[in-house]
């Protein structure tokens, strides 16, 4: 089922949580809504579910205007961050709940509901736990049950709000792979919210990067990582370093010196230079490069992170070196980023 969010605005007590957001989601896609807290990602998910009503704008499921429908009519499977399992019901009753509350005509008989619950429990690899209560399960198991419960109603769209947020790192990684498998098997259109970029980049077909109630960029993991379209995305996805720079005559200037990067398409004026700390080229001499004094050097796993003070106003910038690189012992390092991007400075 395609989902189309059209010019949606949402205010809470006059305070805007989403400004005019539009998004097209293709059928069967696995989409991540990624952003820091307060970016509006959960609000967007809840709007799609029907747990909130938009202040303006519409949400379409296929060709149908879903904004006119209640959450019950939208037929969405929603998985909550804290599971929201019904604590007084067994695992089987939890999974069967969506079928049990159907109106008489479409409600399967009790036996069929039980059979479906067992089937789904097998599917989420928790066979034999039908009679357990949620309190008797681990966090990862609860989240699997929550997913099985959401899938029991054969939802048009599967929505997950920080599905792995409350789990420890090990279980998280395991469930991430497992969710990808489930998605590939069932083919549900799936949207999940996360603040963990690793999770978003690894799991999703496309990532929607959000900030302050707006969508910054929509793209595949490669697109948002390699060609970020805003300073926010560059800074938010992956490690990045930035320096205030200036563009003159199609050349990038740092303080009073050109640094050997040409930017013919960028208008002259103040700008911010972004690059990845690990994607730099070390230079010996410095006829057009960035040179700085080492102020700090730390080993992080297989690389060495070096903090440099650059230029007269002592801007600090980080680069990464191989652990055994000779430059790691120098007190002055010159380098030039291999891949970089300039954004005009916001004034």
């Amino acid at each position, binding site marked *: 089922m395609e989902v189309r969010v059209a010019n949606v605005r949402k205010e809470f007590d006059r305070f805007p949580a989403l400004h005019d957001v539009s998004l097209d989601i293709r059928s069967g896609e696995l989409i991540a809504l990624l952003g820091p807290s307060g970016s509006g990602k959960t609000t967007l998910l809840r709007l799609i579910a029907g747990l909130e009503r938009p202040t303006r704008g519409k949400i379409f499921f296929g060709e149908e205007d879903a904004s006119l429908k209640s959450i019950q009519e939208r037929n969405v499977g929603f998985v909550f961050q804290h599971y929201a399992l*019904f*604590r007084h019901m067994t695992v089987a009753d939890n999974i069967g709940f969506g079928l049990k509350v159907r109106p008489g005509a479409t409600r399967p008989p009790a036996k069929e509901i039980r059979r479906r619950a067992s089937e789904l429990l097998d599917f989420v690899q928790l066979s034999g736990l039908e009679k357990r209560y949620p*309190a008797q399960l681990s966090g990862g198991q609860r989240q699997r049950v929550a997913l099985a419960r959401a899938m029991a109603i054969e939802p048009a769209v599967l929505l997950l709000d920080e599905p792995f947020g409350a789990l420890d790192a090990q279980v998280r990684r395991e469930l991430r792979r497992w969710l990808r498998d489930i998605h590939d098997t069932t083919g549900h259109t799936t949207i999940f919210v996360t603040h963990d970029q690793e999770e978003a980049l690894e799991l999703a077909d496309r990532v929607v990067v959000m900030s302050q109630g707006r969508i910054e960029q929509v793209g595949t993991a490669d697109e948002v990582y390699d060609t970020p379209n805003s300073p926010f995305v560059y800074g938010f996805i992956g490690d990045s370093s930035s320096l205030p720079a200036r563009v003159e005559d199609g050349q990038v200037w740092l303080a009073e010196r050109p640094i050997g990067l040409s930017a013919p398409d960028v208008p002259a004026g103040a700008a911010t230079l972004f690059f990845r700390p690990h994607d730099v080229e070390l230079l010996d001499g410095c006829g057009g490069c960035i040179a700085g004094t080492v102020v700090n050097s730390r080993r992080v796993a297989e690389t060495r992170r070096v903090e440099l003070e650059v230029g007269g106003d002592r801007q600090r910038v980080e680069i990464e070196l191989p652990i055994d690189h000779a430059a790691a012992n120098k007190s002055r390092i010159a380098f030039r980023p291999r891949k970089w991007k300039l954004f005009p400075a916001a004034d």
Partner: protein
Amino acid sequence: MADPHIETYDPEHEVMSAAITESRPARAVFMAIAFVFLALFLVLPLVVVFNQAFAKGLETYLTSLNDGDTLSAIKLTLIVAAISVPLNLVFGLAASWAIAKFEFKGKAFLTTLIDLPFSVSPVISGLVYVLLFGAQSALGPFLKAHGIEILFAVPGIVLATVFVTFPFVARELIPLMQEQGTGDEEAALSLGASGWQTFWYVTLPNIKWGLLYGVLLCNARAMGEFGAVSVVSGHIRGQTNTMPLHVEILYNEYNAVGAFAVASLLAGLALVTLVLKTVLEMRYGAEIAATRGH
């Protein structure tokens, strides 16, 4: 369905650091004060009540209970409780549902209003109804002309009791429901459940012990209320006397055995309530921990 994995507050196993623990003699003094106080103000009166009730033997006790007016007082008390407790159960549920699960204008005002009966003297509560339905009021004569008696009749007693007891259920449930949040309800709705199904299958089971606890306290108060009921009842023997009022009448007539016999029933109710309350608190402490004692 006791939940074996939920940790409950267990005072006996709480580890106290030496720094905040008092010395042995100091502890003994504090405990002695507490016990003496309890004995003096709680146990002793109870003993006196039962002692006086049985002063002239079991037979006299039973005979004085078997009196026509006494039986009618017991009956009236049960009727009043049977009407006002369910009313306040429904009201308390509705109010706490609204307050805990929704945001609306005037919520703080409503919350304050629910506590009003606790802060107003019961006599005033009764007087309000006298002013509202009395012979001098606008409503009283009108209703009387249509054959509806409020004051000095059962409806007045029920109204006064409902007013005095209405905070009990709501006060238990509001903090409990606020703590539980709306996650479970949202989950049920997203699975296609109607509002009623959500309430019945999800909300109610989550709050059932807290609700029972509130009902218990509400019932104890409904049966024992004196002040407000005294003002509106008119004290007509055999007709509008509830048990607490009847105790007073018998006592004023120097019928000590009769008075204490009825009083012993009320004391018995209090004891049963106390035991049930303790059992509920022990078994479902985690669920009703959010609520404060009264």
